[in-house]
């Protein structure tokens, strides 16, 4: 079918929990599939975004690759949406912001309990870590926010159906949660 709304999704410094919650749309996914098609997304395995209508971003930015991905989404998506606590305020990954990066790496790869062959991974293929995890609105302009850890399937549904019907998306009281 021509002229389906094109949606791209990605998880940056997130746990894929928001994507799992999206899949909780269950049978409503069938209805949704009649209206939208997926571009770059873990659901399709397409690796790069092309022109899209809606981009859904889970997670904050914790490394250089996250920043590139986020910019690619901003460049290609008409509407960019911060999905979940981590995209909005860094979330639990940002709890490392209070520990110097060097200490985090030593704990994980050098001094931690049960570490064998201790060495800090360093390979050109590996994206460099940022000194702090940051929310995505600090890097690119964000059009809408869906709070929650994760936002419930009902939040995705309300937001997308509002948008697809040409309404300004609104979340009622019971749909707004930070936990």
């Amino acid at each position, binding site marked *: 079918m021509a002229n389906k709304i094109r949606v791209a999704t990605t998880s940056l410094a997130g746990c894929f929990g928001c994507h799992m919650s999206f899949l909780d749309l269950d049978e409503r996914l069938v209805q949704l599939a009649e209206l939208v098609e997926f571009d770059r997304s873990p659901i399709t395995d397409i690796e790069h975004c092309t022109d899209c209508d809606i981009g859904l971003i889970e997670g904050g930015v914790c490394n250089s690759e996250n920043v590139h991905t986020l910019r690619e989404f901003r460049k290609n998506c008409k509407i960019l949406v911060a999905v979940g606590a981590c995209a909005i305020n860094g979330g639990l990954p940002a709890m490392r912001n209070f520990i110097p990066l060097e200490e985090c790496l030593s704990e994980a790869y050098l001094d931690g309990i049960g570490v064998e062959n201790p060495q800090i991974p360093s390979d050109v293929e590996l994206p460099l870590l940022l000194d702090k995890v940051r929310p995505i609105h600090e890097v690119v302009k964000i059009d809408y926010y869906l709070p929650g850890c994760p936002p419930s399937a009902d939040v995705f549904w309300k937001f997308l159906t509002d948008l697809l019907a040409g309404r300004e998306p609104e979340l009622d009281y019971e749909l707004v949660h*930070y936990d």
Partner: protein
Amino acid sequence: MSKTITIDGKTIPFEDGQTIMEAATAADVYIPHLCHHPEFTPHGSCKLCTVKVNGRNCSACTFPAAEGQDVLNNTQELIDDRRKITQMLFVEGNHFCPSCEKTGNCQLQAVAYHLNMLDDHFPLFYPNREMDASHPDVLIDHNRCIFCALCVRASQQHDGKNVFAISGRGINKHLIFNAESGQLKDTDLDKNDKAAHICPTGAILIKRTGYQVPIGQRIYDHHEIDEVSLATTEHQHGE
């Protein structure tokens, strides 16, 4: 004839000596607030209760009601201002609600929900703040303190003690405890003190009680703070 003010066009009676907040509450009109508590002297620090009185911004919790005042409360402009103030309170601390015991019972979060705050708007400060877990029954997480001084006032005015104070300025502002060591365990705070239960956020927690009510079944999960705040039974500090 009693004296009156109007709030958003509605006539509200007041008695001499009442603040705008007190007159409004008595008439079942909710004005958002965090540092105000009816039992304690007003502090006027959070500015969430900002209303327009005869065209000028004032804090409803400290401003005395006076005959004929024209007060605006629920205007879009004031709601937008209050949302920005709440966003500032979030970014200047560390509020990771999914890992906070207070979530669902937190007044800061509830005010944010009430204002339909969906994002933080500002860059996050991620200030480096400590915890004090030294006390056997009470935990302090400075990351979530909004310096409302309710614990300070409750300790002095209700408990007859003087456990808490606010010290420092700007990003270095912090809650301190009245003990030589600076640790909570060396104060005379008891877990049954009003001061241990008054915190509107998750900065003061009673140990071993955090998850007695599951997330999803807590006060503000299903009731808006205006409704809870105006209800006569005081159940807003559920633990």
